[in-house]
Structures are given as structure tokens and as C-alpha cells.
């Protein structure tokens, strides 16, 4: 029950991409003494390897570590509960606002979101410039995603495969 409450709260206050949410989960989970720092880091490693939103995966894992399968289902449902309600309500409220106000709001959020994505790019830039292979993967991903109709998922899986082959041959 305490687990459900904690993840309801995490879901309600977590803004931005997965990494922000992971930070919030860490504060809650490590702060409550459910897991230690080391255990949490291992868990985040696993949340990255598995597909899907990193924050959701982290929630599922914490639930699993604490209470097994029921715990993981409870934690993942709790973390998305408040966002789900808000999204359903947002559509309703936007409908009440009238088309013009809704349009203004939509345009203003687009203006601000542009800045948020720019910030994300800025914070990722050093990682892309860190090595020649890293820059190459990023450049290919950029070119494919920006200028072709190829699904970017193939570039993600392809880069992973190429790096694995490189690592095997480097031994």
C-alpha cells in the first residue's frame, strides 16, 4: 500500500523525460530505505537494457524487488495513474475553453516545448562528441530520422549491433 502511494506521488510530480523521473524515484525509494544506492544503480542499469520508457521500467523493477509480480504491476499502474487521469481531463478542459483559447494554448506550449527539446539536445551533445564511433552513430541516426522515411528503431537496434560486433572483435 505504501508502495502504491509512493508511486502515485511519483507519477503526479514527474515532469520531463525519463531521467528526471528516475531521479525522483531514487529520492523516494532510497530515501525510504527500500533499496540502497548500489541496489538502485543496478536496477536503473536493467531499466535501460529493457525496451520501453526508462521511468516506467524503473517503477516496475522497484515493485518487483519489493513484492514480486503483484508489486511490479501495482507500481507500474500507480506511476501512470495520475498522468492518465490528467490527460483524459485535459481534453475535457480544452473542450470547455473553446477552440480559440485551446488553439492559443496549443501554440504557446509548442513554443516552450521547442526550448525543452533544445535543452535536451544541449545536454546530450557532449556524449555525441565524446568519441568518433559515438559521433558516427549520432550522425547516422540524425540523417535517417531527419531526412528519410525509415523507422528510426532500425538505426537504434543497428547501432547496438554494430557496437556489439566491434566489442567482440576488439578483444
Amino acid at each position, binding site marked *: 500500500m505504501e508502495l502504491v502511494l509512493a508511486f502515485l506521488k511519483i507519477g503526479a510530480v514527474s515532469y520531463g523525460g525519463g531521467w528526471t523521473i528516475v531521479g525522483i524515484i531514487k529520492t523516494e525509494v532510497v530515501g525510504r530505505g527500500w533499496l540502497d544506492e548500489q541496489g538502485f544503480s543496478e536496477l536503473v*542499469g536493467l531499466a535501460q537494457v529493457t525496451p520501453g520508457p526508462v521511468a516506467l521500467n524503473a517503477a516496475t523493477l522497484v515493485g518487483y524487488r519489493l513484492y514480486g509480480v503483484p508489486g*511490479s504491476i501495482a507500481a507500474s499502474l500507480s506511476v501512470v495513474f495520475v498522468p492518465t487521469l490528467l490527460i*483524459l481531463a485535459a481534453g475535457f478542459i480544452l473542450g470547455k475553453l473553446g477552440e480559440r483559447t485551446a488553439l492559443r*494554448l*496549443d501554440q504557446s506550449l509548442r513554443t*516552450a516545448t521547442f526550448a525543452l*527539446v*533544445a535543452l535536451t539536445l544541449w545536454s546530450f551533445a557532449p556524449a555525441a562528441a565524446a568519441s568518433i564511433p559515438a559521433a558516427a*552513430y549520432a550522425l547516422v541516426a*540524425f540523417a535517417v530520422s531527419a531526412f528519410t522515411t525509415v523507422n528510426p528503431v532500425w538505426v537504434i537496434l543497428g547501432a547496438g549491433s554494430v557496437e556489439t560486433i566491434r566489442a567482440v572483435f576488439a578483444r
Partner: protein
Amino acid sequence: MEETRNPGLFGIFSLFAGISTLTIGGGYAMIPVIARKVSSKGWLDEAEFYGLFATAQSLPGPMAYNTALLVGKRTAGAAGALCAGLGILLPPVTIVMIAAALVSTAGENAVMGAFLRGAGATVPGLVAALLLRMTLKRSWNPARALLSAGAAAAMIAAPVWAVPLFFVASAIAFLFERPEGGNGS
């Protein structure tokens, strides 16, 4: 409603389940994949999708999940939203539970580590492409351009304040948007 705008509940579920199963690297890897798929299927045009993405950013919760819910809602109502949400949730929750039962420290495995490093290295490129596509699909005017650039500079200068700055920028932008829906000033 045109045919293309009505993908069906199972169509929505399977699209998001597929994306959620294959995409490693979290939200910023998933958003470009979702953008590509929904526009190639003709459910939404790309500019409309970026509008939903903006709304998703303004609400709490995992970004990819919020965006999927909004796409489902726009194309097939509340039931569509729930199907999209289930599609995003189900594969990772299942895979994560199996993974948790099998291994405890996957990140320390050398081969898995290399695969992750490669997959993760594409994310900066994907974010750059997302920013470029958003720029190309936006109908710009001086006020919007100045505010976007100003907000970006402020967030880069003080990343800890990114979320409050997001709302301040939205509020200022709201004042500059003409109620007529014209091209602002």
C-alpha cells in the same frame, strides 16, 4: 471522419505495443519513432503530432506514455487513449519482470553493455532530428521564434529550473498569441 483517421482500437494498441517492445533508450528514442509511424499511417499529420507532444510535455508522467495516450485519444477517443496506454505499458512490464527474474546485473555483462552503448549513442542524433523536424513543421513568427530561442537559452543557463521556465515561457507565449488564431505579432 476520414478512413485514415480511424485506425481502430486494436490498430492503436498494436502500434504502441510494437514501438514499446523494440525501442531501447527511453522517451527521446520513442518520440521520433512514434512521429514517423503515426504520420506514415496517416493517423495524424506531423505538425499536429508535435502539438500533442507539446501537450504531453506540459503534464506529469513518462513523456512517451503521455504522447501515446494523446495520440490514442485524438484518433479514437478515451477508449483509444486506454488502448494506446496499455500498448505502451504491457510489453515493457512483462519483459522487465522476466528480466528481473533472470538476471540482477545485466548492465555488467560486456556484450549487453556494448549493445546498450551503441543504441544509446543514437539518442543525441534522434533528438537533433526531432528538433529539426519540429522547426520545419512549425509556423514561425518573430514572437514565437524569439520566445523559443530565449526560453532555450534560459533553460541551458539554468537546467535545474527547466520545468518552471517551461511554464513561464508557455504563459508569456500565451499572451503573445492572438486570440483570433492569426499569425501573432
